[in-house]
């Protein structure tokens, strides 16, 4: 359904068509007007060249997801569009913009009768050649054309074009501005607008545009990261790329290691040496790190580990999303090894979660896993310009690790069994603080010991920290009317579609509410108890075939005792949940509940 305040534009073409940069110009323009923006990119299998597509959603109102269907589909070449047919679902009354000189004949174009109703053909290539002497500015011609057709913010677009070419000679910018103007003029002179779409918005303070991975990198730097070690792996690599660029400016060190075993052990070494340390990885890399995560639990070394989940198992689907590393994050590595798992649920939350992850790991001296995914990591989203001053959780506290006092150093017990299990931690350079840290079971001094009593005591000490974390932190999100009988519990990137579906259902008069826990582990029961108290049914959507999240929840929450029926909604990854999919389930369950009343 077309909505003038909230539109989804798809662009598809070949590698040289400038699809991605056109998307970026749109995103920047909309964000500079203070609009809410969401952009997803998709590529063919080739490393360079090949086909690509973007989907840009821009809205006057807050948006939570990529938008299910495309309102305006720009096709720079039809042969490349075919590759993305299944990803770019078109509205029935979609508006098509394509190149007037596209070699594919109209009858071969994969559109239904309905979808052909609004179809504008504009000679992108020809206009580009006329203005710039080459075809490379066809994407800019296109932007000029659609800005005229749909009343997109023209001034802002022009500024974004200037910005994207700012490092090129001034002639390049000039000719591109001319290309944009030519696109606009062509529409004014030759196109008769028949579709009803005209974008409506109010200008506001500009918003920032970030990817989830960038937000994690910046959050880490904000939190005082000193040392990063990593090994490239899609879709986490951008984190290291940003950090290797900005951490040295802030006197920190970024090391590319030979593998993930080296990465995790290097950050453990840095942490032992008293520094704030982090690594980021995905898929096969996180599997390799599990032994090191156990060492962090045992030696009580604070470290932050980012897992930007991708499709699995094994090499799986490196550039696609899935939520199937949950159980591994919680229970991975042998032995009873305490760690904290936090799941950011959107780009802005990536920043918050990272600041929080450092706080918890430094305070409680244990590994903290940030469980993001490709869908958050790689998408661009506009975020609150004041995010840096405290986003939704507002969590901006920095913790400075407890170090032993002079009195404690007289007879230093590195692993002293304190009330909350946290023992002041020395590091090289502190005289009298010398100790043996180890992955082997040890006593309070750090000396290896294997008797049952000591193992029980020290295990209990390490786990006691988890109880204190539960007392100190509680963060989850909640949407919809609390008293609703129908509920949804979801985690991580599924939040966006869930929140939008809940809003839509509420607007349709269906009472449904949602709970999104962000502190995944240790498990804090209260939010769930409060949430399910008055529920009859709870839908659990997740991108895990095995239903890991549902199984995890069932281990703690006595749904049956509360008379709550659990409705799994699980699917394998690649495509994140569409709002429609969740909304349909809500309607189905709600109808069934009504029928049984």
């Amino acid at each position, binding site marked *: 359904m077309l909505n003038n305040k909230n539109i989804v534009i798809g662009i598809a073409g070949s590698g040289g068509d400038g699809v991605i940069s056109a998307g970026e110009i749109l995103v920047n323009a909309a964000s500079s007007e203070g609009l809410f923006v969401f952009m997803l990119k998709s590529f063919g299998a080739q490393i360079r060249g090949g086909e690509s597509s973007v989907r840009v959603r821009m809205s006057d109102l807050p948006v939570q997801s990529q938008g299910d269907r495309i309102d305006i589909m720009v096709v720079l070449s039809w042969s490349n569009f075919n590759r993305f047919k299944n990803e770019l679902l078109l509205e029935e009354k979609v508006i098509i913009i394509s190149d007037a000189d596209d070699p594919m004949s109209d009858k071969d174009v994969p559109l239904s009768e309905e979808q052909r109703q609004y179809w504008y053909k504009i000679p992108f290539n020809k206009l580009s050649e006329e203005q710039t002497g080459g075809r490379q500015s066809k994407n800019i011609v296109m932007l000029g054309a659609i800005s005229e057709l749909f009343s997109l913010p023209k001034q802002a677009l022009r500024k974004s074009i200037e910005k994207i070419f700012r490092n090129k000679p001034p002639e390049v910018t000039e000719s591109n501005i001319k290309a944009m103007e030519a696109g606009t003029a062509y529409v004014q002179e030759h196109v008769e607008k028949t579709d009803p779409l005209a974008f409506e918005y109010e200008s506001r303070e500009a918003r920032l545009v970030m990817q989830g991975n960038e937000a994690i990198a910046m959050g880490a730097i904000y939190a005082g990261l*000193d040392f990063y070690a990593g090994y490239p792996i899609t879709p986490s690599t951008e984190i290291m790329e940003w950090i290797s660029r*900005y951490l040295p400016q802030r006197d920190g*060190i970024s090391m590319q290691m030979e593998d993930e075993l080296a990465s995790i*052990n*290097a950050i453990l*070494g840095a942490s032992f*040496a008293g520094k704030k340390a982090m690594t980021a990885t995905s898929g096969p890399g996180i599997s390799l790190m599990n032994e090191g995560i156990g060492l962090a639990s045992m030696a009580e070394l604070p470290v932050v580990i980012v897992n930007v989940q991708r499709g699995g198992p094994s090499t799986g689907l490196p550039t696609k999303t899935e939520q199937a590393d949950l159980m591994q994050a919680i229970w991975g590595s042998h032995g009873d090894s305490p760690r904290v798992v936090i799941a950011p649920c959107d780009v802005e939350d990536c920043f918050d979660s990272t600041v929080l992850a450092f706080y918890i790991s430094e305070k409680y001296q244990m590994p903290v896993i940030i469980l993001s995914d490709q869908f958050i990591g790689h998408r661009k989203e506009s975020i609150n310009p004041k995010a840096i001053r405290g986003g939704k959780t507002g969590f901006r506290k920095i913790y400075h690790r407890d170090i032993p006092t002079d009195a404690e150093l007289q007879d230093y017990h590195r692993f002293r069994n304190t009330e909350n299990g946290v023992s002041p931690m020395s590091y090289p350079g502190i005289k009298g603080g010398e100790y043996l840290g180890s992955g082997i079971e040890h006593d309070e001094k750090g000396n290896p010991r294997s008797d049952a009593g000591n193992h029980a005591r020290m295990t209990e000490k390490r786990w006691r920290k988890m109880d204190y974390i539960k007392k100190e932190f509680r963060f989850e999100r909640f949407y919809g009317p609390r008293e609703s009988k129908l509920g949804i519990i979801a985690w991580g990137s599924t939040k966006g579609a869930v929140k939008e579906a809940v809003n839509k259902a509420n607007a349709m008069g269906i009472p449904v509410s949602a709970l999104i826990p962000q502190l995944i582990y240790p498990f804090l029961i209260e939010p769930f108890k409060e949430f399910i108290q008055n529920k009859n049914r709870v839908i659990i959507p997740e991108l895990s075939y095995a239903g890991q999240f549902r199984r995890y929840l069932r281990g703690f929450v006595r749904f049956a005792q509360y008379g709550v029926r659990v409705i799994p909604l699980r699917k394998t990854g690649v495509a994140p949940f569409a709002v429609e999919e969740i909304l349909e389930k809500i309607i189905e369950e709600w109808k069934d509940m009504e029928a049984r009343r």
Partner: protein
Amino acid sequence: MSETTEKTMSARDYKSDLKPIWCPGCGNFGFLNALYLTFQELQLQPENTAVVSGIGCSSRLPGYVKTYAFNGVHGRVLPFASGVKMSRPETTVIAVGGDGDGFSIGAGHIGHAARKNINITYVVLDNNIYGLTKGQASPTTPLGVKTKTTYYGNMGMQFNPVRMLIAYKASFVARTFSGDPKHIRKVLVEAIRHNGFSFVEVLSPCVTFRGKDQFKIIRDKVRYLDEQHHADNELEAFDVANDEKELALGVIYKKPRPTYDEIINADVTTKAKAVSHGKPKVNKLMDQFKP
């Protein structure tokens, strides 16, 4: 490295309260005693010294020294040591491990620590066997030797660590023998003083799983390098390393070059600061995400 004279340290001052769990006669004792004496000779301050290890009999060693110490997981001592050193460059970092820890499970790390020239000393107590797990073949177990997991004789060729380390461009490569603590001390002092990655192979018999006669066998097989040897000559060093009949003891190869932290200080940080004009505030960094 910190050599100060504030309080004179004796070898005993470096001894921890833990008693080594090693078998009587184990080669590791000779090395440990030489290590205390080396620390004394260099007057290392315990708070500015870190001895770190992986897993194995040999990797128990950090527990026996009264400095900062860490006993991590099998094979990962070099990345851990790199993290410590890069975080606290003023700390003298000594990484210790066995031949299994270093050349089998951890083999992937050696080339990189060497190539990056991380300024640490890496000591492998090479006993040609897996000691802690009670006598299985290691990468340096000679061909044909019967072990618990090579019942009919070891099928793999014995591995030559010194040759590998020279090939990996380690800036300091030495070999010594736990039957000669004086020699260990001489080599170790030089290794620790060396500015860059220094590798020391210590022939350190496992009397329990390789037999008590190992000390004698090794003693009969070694020779000491003298001034005739030019350690800065790579080809000469390779010739010495290639001789597996007569094992040369001493500094076999030594060629200093800038260390990883020197490159960071001189190059990376300078370039980064030139771009950012000093230490940028996070607020400033966030500006680049403005549309």
